């Protein structure tokens, strides 16, 4: 009995015209009613058949606009090209060469404003579903370890690099530097890896298992991760400089910005960081009898409309909220969150209370939050950012009954490391200043991610990690 090569089975033989006529793949999703009450991943991923068909839609442009749109410059047409021929192992190789966290990016990147926005297919039809394909290839690699095992052939350089923070920027830089033969140690302040990927992004958007596997892969490349080490407290930057040839600071954003409205310290008022950390990192409310407690509100108001706000409100819904609301002073058009997140939130029964600004949290005699006093707004003239400025409508107030309020306004720079590194130049917001090649004011010390940018996205942090790794490599070669 002769066996047909598997690759040929999956490769549809389509004419150019047929390929152009293919509709964009639809991401299979769990039913909204059911998923809004559990933490299972919302998007279930393309099947192999769907992925290979979708890959046929790529025109493999010579002028790779999609790559220009990607902060880590993934070789998009190349990995999709390999996938289109059914050679998924090759697609894995291409992808891994450019990104340390493809399974993460494939899930949480805002492709619609990056690679997919630049896709030439978007002119006449819909862009190639690059994100879905990246996720498919990365997940396939995780499920086929034997076929995708990577052994480093690079000669060790004997150079050592300390990375501060095990989030997207740190992990990306670690992967890049390890592949270049440098010995990398990551120091993480929390007890587990992943940084914001673990404490910030909920299980239903990025399962923890995915982070574990991506991190494990870096371990195979020789990256060592030490948890419970807070640089600036357990050890100083100066100590790291003495012990390592180079340092990359990627300790992330830190302190939550406060609402600065009355009632902020009532019980039931959380920062997004606290709420998400309790649930995501500590498992509060996700497992029966979780040791870390959380207030599971019936009526939850989340202030803000970015991705973090969406994560909070959808988490609150899953914890059992009857009414989970986004409170935003502008309209849906101005919301900074990804379209997909807003769409998913709506499907899950999230209410959007728009043109509404919080004035204060109201409490009962035992100081539990019971209401959110709000000012109704109207959009005025466009401001400097081009967005129409929300203006209060005189006399228009509303009090929403709530028992939990979550502030998702954003974060400011974490001072723990910088406090104990007086030579490190900061900007007026406390973020680390870097030059165009990610170098800080201290020789051999580089920085990237949110500690430089303020609050940004996973992919921008990864882009910084990749850029910094290049600069660090150049620096190490010159030593």
């Amino acid at each position, binding site marked *: 009995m002769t066996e047909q090569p598997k690759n040929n089975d999956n490769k549809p033989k389509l004419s150019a015209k047929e390929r152009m006529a293919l509709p964009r793949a639809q991401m299979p999703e769990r039913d909204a009613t059911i998923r809004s009450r559990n933490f299972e991943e919302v998007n279930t991923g393309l099947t192999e058949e769907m992925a290979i068909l979708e890959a046929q839609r790529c025109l493999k442009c010579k002028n790779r606009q999609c790559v220009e749109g990607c902060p880590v410059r993934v070789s998009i047409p190349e990995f999709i090209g390999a996938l289109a021929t059914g050679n998924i192992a090759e697609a894995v190789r291409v992808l891994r060469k450019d990104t340390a966290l493809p399974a993460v990016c494939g899930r949480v990147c805002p492709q619609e404003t990056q690679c997919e926005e630049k896709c030439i297919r978007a002119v006449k039809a819909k862009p190639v579903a690059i994100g879905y394909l990246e996720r498919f290839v990365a997940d396939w690699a995780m499920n086929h370890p034997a076929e995708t095992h990577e052994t480093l052939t690079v000669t060790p350089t004997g150079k050592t690099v300390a990375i501060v923070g095990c989030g997207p920027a740190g992990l990306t830089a670690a992967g890049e530097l390890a592949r270049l033969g440098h010995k990398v140690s990551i120091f993480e*302040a*929390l*007890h587990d890896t992943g940084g914001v990927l673990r*404490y910030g992004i909920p299980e239903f958007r990025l399962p923890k298992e995915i982070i574990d596997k991506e991190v494990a892969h870096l371990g195979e490349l020789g990256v060592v991760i030490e*948890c*419970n*080490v*807070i640089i600036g*407290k*357990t*050890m100083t930057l100066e100590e790291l400089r003495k012990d390592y040839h180079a340092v990359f600071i990627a300790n992330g954003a*830190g*302190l*939550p910005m*406060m609402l600065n409205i009355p009632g*902020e*310290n009532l*019980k039931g008022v*959380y*920062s997004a*960081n*606290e709420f998400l*950390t*309790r649930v995501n990192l*500590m*498992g509060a409310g996700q*497992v029966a*009898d*979780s*040791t*870390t*407690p959380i*207030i599971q509100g019936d009526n939850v108001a989340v202030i803000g409309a970015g991705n973090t706000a969406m994560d909070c409100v959808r988490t609150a819904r899953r914890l059992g909220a009857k009414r989970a609301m986004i409170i935003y002073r502008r309209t849906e058009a101005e919301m900074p969150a990804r379209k997909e997140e807003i769409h998913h939130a709506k499907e899950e029964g999230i209410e959007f209370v728009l043109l509404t600004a919080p004035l204060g949290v109201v409490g009962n005699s035992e*100081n539990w939050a019971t209401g959110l006093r709000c000012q109704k707004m109207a959009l005025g003239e466009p401001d400097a950012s081009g967005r129409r400025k929300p203006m209060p409508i005189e006399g228009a107030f509303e009090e929403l009954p709530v028992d939990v309020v979550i502030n998702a306004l954003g974060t400011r720079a*974490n*001072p*723990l490391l910088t406090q104990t590194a007086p030579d490190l130049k900061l900007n007026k917001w406390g973020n680390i200043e870097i030059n165009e090649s990610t170098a800080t004011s201290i020789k051999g010390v580089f920085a990237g991610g949110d500690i430089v940018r303020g609050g940004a996205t996973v992919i921008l942090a990864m882009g910084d990690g990749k850029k910094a790794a290049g600069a660090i490599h150049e620096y190490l070669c010159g030593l």
Partner: protein
Amino acid sequence: MFKVLSNEILAPELHKLVVVAPRVAKARKAGQFVIVRADVGDERIPLTIGDADVEAGTVSLFIQAIGASTRKLVAIQAGGFIRDVAGPLGLATHLENYGRVACIGGGVGTAVLYPLVKGLAQAGNEITTIIGGRSAPYVILQKELGALSKNLLLTTDDGSLGVKGFVTNVLKELMSNPETCPKAVFAVGPGPMMKAVAEMTRADKIPTIVSLNPIMIDGTGMCGGCRVDVGGEVKFACVDGPEFDGHLVDFDLLRDRLSTYKDQERRALDRCSADKCKIGRS
């Protein structure tokens, strides 16, 4: 994993654990704390570093077994391991020579006070230490604090040891005499005790430092759960504290926020008892 070298019972439900954590031992200063997680899946809880031995690479943690998580910790015997110990966190105590100071410890707060007294003694202060407890078995570290202090005064609520009554009674007496009146007061203990001390020293404007114990998760400023009101300003106890000017602290808010999870904590303890779990029970 952090090895527990010894586990000693100092008072009913109050244990002293000596834990191997060389980096923390080397970096810590008086007044700082660690975040500890007994095992995978357990809560992160803040514990003051009572003492450290840089040579041996160890820190001493004083743990009062009041909830499910602390009971689990004190059940770890010598030779066992604590999963996570992260620190040192918080700002170190500002140590200077005030001259004559009073250091007041209530209950487990006395253990938190110990490194402060040690530091203040090294800075050359003349120290009167007041230790308060419910009854005689709850008065801890007499020997250690006595060795560092010029005077050691004890109080118990029931009069079973030292003066019957509260630490504030003794402080009042010290303050009434210009010869003994402290130039600064350090108070660590339950909120109501620290509040009473701060109220007593307010009129005479005696600088009064208290160490706060709000609920924390990460301990690095990330979550803001430990926020306290100090002089009308929001401060994070984990990065701006844990020590603050006692005259500016809103103790009522602290007490209130500490009660956030009391229902959940009670349920966790009930579960613990229902499982016939006797951990931490001496």
